[in-house]
């Protein structure tokens, strides 16, 4: 991690800080539970956990306003929880049940919520970047003042369509924040092995897009950068890039043995930089909460996650008729 540790911000209320703590903890506990359900065979296919990266989405959601949009890759559970989607609906989609956000037809990588302005959940690396710019294009066209967060990883940052999108976003002054979640590994390939660029956000300079690097283990630093980026977009100045340095504790997906890095590297990050522990320290040292308060929060969140897990097991599998629904938005006769 090249980022420096920033001092704790004083411009945050105890209530906000507690809120961030709860939101990050919910994501962590949810993902641990998802990992467990995967191990039990209740979740199939690919399942990409967000553990370690919680401060990124929680910090940026704190900077967003109602009506703002977000779109991301297949590592999407954290984004969904952070924008207020129901843990029960997310978990039930992971188990492929009727109660899931896509009624079991999308799965871990493909989930959406029109109500919460969450536009997926995309399984093709980098495809969400022009889609995010397109959402911003629609906002600008409709003059509704919205801003879109287009999240992608350090791996996607090498896709050509990202740079095609940078170019057009700048030509058309689109209100889109390109959020590079640099967790340092594209599956098993480290950033150092995939690019000679010293930093990813600086590539925006070739298109005239401003940006900055952010400490993604510090939720307050992320929030502050997010507010700046949102203000830039909202003022009609066009796109902005945030390269958020973060770290994924778990493998790329559940089936990744993660032999491309040492156990010590991961443990060091957990011990020294954990985003949740950092906020926990701030809460305790600032006397905003007691150990008992935090224990109670932990218990509440565990209950929410357990309830989601129970729901995801009890919700029935989709009806067999669902195979043929939602292919077209209107009635299309089946072929002879």
């Amino acid at each position, binding site marked *: 991690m090249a980022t420096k540790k920033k001092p704790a911000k004083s411009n945050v209320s105890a209530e906000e800080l507690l809120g961030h703590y709860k939101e990050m903890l919910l994501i962590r506990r949810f993902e641990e539970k998802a990992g467990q359900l995967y191990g039990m065979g209740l979740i199939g296919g690919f399942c990409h956990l967000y553990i370690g990266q919680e401060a990124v989405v929680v910090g940026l959601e704190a900077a967003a306003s109602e009506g703002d949009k977000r779109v991301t890759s297949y590592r999407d559970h954290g984004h969904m929880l952070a924008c207020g989607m129901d843990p029960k609906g997310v978990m039930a989609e992971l188990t492929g049940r009727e109660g899931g956000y896509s009624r079991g037809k999308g799965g871990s990588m493909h989930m959406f919520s029109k109500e919460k302005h969450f536009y997926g959940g995309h399984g093709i690396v980098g495809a969400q970047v022009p889609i995010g710019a397109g959402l911003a294009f629609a906002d600008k066209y409709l003059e509704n003042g919205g801003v879109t967060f287009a999240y992608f990883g350090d791996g996607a940052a090498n896709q050509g369509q990202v740079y095609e999108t940078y*170019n057009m976003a700048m030509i058309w002054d689109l209100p889109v924040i390109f959020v590079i979640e640099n967790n340092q590994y594209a599956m098993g390939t480290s950033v150092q092995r995939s690019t000679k660029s010293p930093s990813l956000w600086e590539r925006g300079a070739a298109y005239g897009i401003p940006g900055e690097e952010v400490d993604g283990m510090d939720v307050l630093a992320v929030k502050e950068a997010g507010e700046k980026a949102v203000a830039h977009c909202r003022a009609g100045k066009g796109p902005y890039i945030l390269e958020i340095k973060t770290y994924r504790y778990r493998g790329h997906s559940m*089936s990744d*043995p993660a032999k491309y890095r040492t*156990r010590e590297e991961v443990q060091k990050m957990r011990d020294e930089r954990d985003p949740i522990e950092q906020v926990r320290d701030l809460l305790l040292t600032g006397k905003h909460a007691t150990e008992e308060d935090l224990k109670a929060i932990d218990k509440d969140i565990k209950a929410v996650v357990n309830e989601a897990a129970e729901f995801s097991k009890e919700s029935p599998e989709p009806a067999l008729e669902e195979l043929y629904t939602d292919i077209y938005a209107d009635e299309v006769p089946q072929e002879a």
Partner: protein
Amino acid sequence: MATEILMPALSPTMEEGTLAKWLVKEGDEITSGMIIAEIETDKATMEFEAVDEGTMGKIMVDEGTEGVKVNTPIAVLLEEGEDASAVPDAAPPAAAQPEEKAAAPAPVAAEVATPVQQADTSPDWPKGTEMKSTTVREALRDAMAEEMRRDETVYLMGEEVAEYQGAYKVSQGLLDEFSAKRVIDTPITEHGFTGIAVGAAFGGLRPIVEFMTFNFALQAIDHIINSAAKTLYMSGGQMGAPMVFRGANGAAARVGAQHSHDFAAWYSQVPGLKVVMPYSAADAKGLLKTAIRDPNPVVFLENEILYGRSFDVPVMDDFTIPLGKAKIAREGTDLTIVSFGIGMQYALEAAEKLAADGISAEVIDLRTLRPMDTATVINSVMKTNRCITVEEGFPVCSIGNHISAVLMENAFDYLDAPVINCTGKDVPMPYAANLEKLALVTTDEVVEAARKVTYR
């Protein structure tokens, strides 16, 4: 309460594994996220992390044990205050077994010996409507202009669509009427602008994406298929991409292999897409207007050679043709010729030649390829008992192949001859004039096929 730790599935295909190594022992304090064991799956050795907190009460499967089935209890975790006596002697069955597979859906039985199918045979416009000679190019432009007047969210984007007035002049005049906000020149960047258009459709607009030719849309096909066609399904019906992808498709003249590909069969294969390929100017106009209003992604395949050709177009305030409705372009009794797009030119010419020899061909213009009006084809073949198909695309996995299969399943007993597919040749399009001519389907080939199926 004591918590059982179960043998985990650590890959999509794992059913059992080897408990290679325990990294904790009985009595150890366990925290969530702690790596407690190494497990060998069918692919790799994986670290296994604890989810719950507590004290390791009992290790029930020794390290080195092979063939441990997924979901077998392998250890028991004790909560604060519990001791090992809480561990039951005999492990109860695993708490959560993977759900049993749901009963397989009943196979959809092929409908055998179908009687006459319901086909929409209504005329496209009322009898006596005033007609006006219009080029396909103007018809397409008029369709876009009318729909843009009707709906503020409809906009056009693509290379050279605005200031240049369209590479093939299809968008002539649109910039003047609708301004640069709604008629948008893009850089040469198909992958990117197609993705942006899909996002704009998710965001509430109705984009028309013009590809200078569909050959270049190959750079964008990921967004057409993975982003536009599949999202409605993947979102459980919450959101889709109401938009049109249009442009010149298939061979023009002497532009070689990379500029001459007919993609009709490719796109027609994809659930979630609708595919239109008109021949006449009236169809181009009526179908494009419908495509723009359609709530789904529509691939609209035009043809450069047809752009300049004139046809009668009805003079009506709001002339539309429903998608999925074929047209009987010429009635006949001896055989059915099914075609679409520029293939119709060969089909109609052949029908004319055949008529001179006393063979009466019924010519069907599919117009929409997905959903396909197979009912009209089947009904016609039940009458004529013979069928040939005509298209410019490649022969393998062609639209004609599909029609042959549909007829085998639905009108087998009515066929008096095998269906013949007339297609472009199975070669990349050559540049040399004589070879190009040879590579395309010809009227003579259609006539020959017609004689074959009628044994005349």
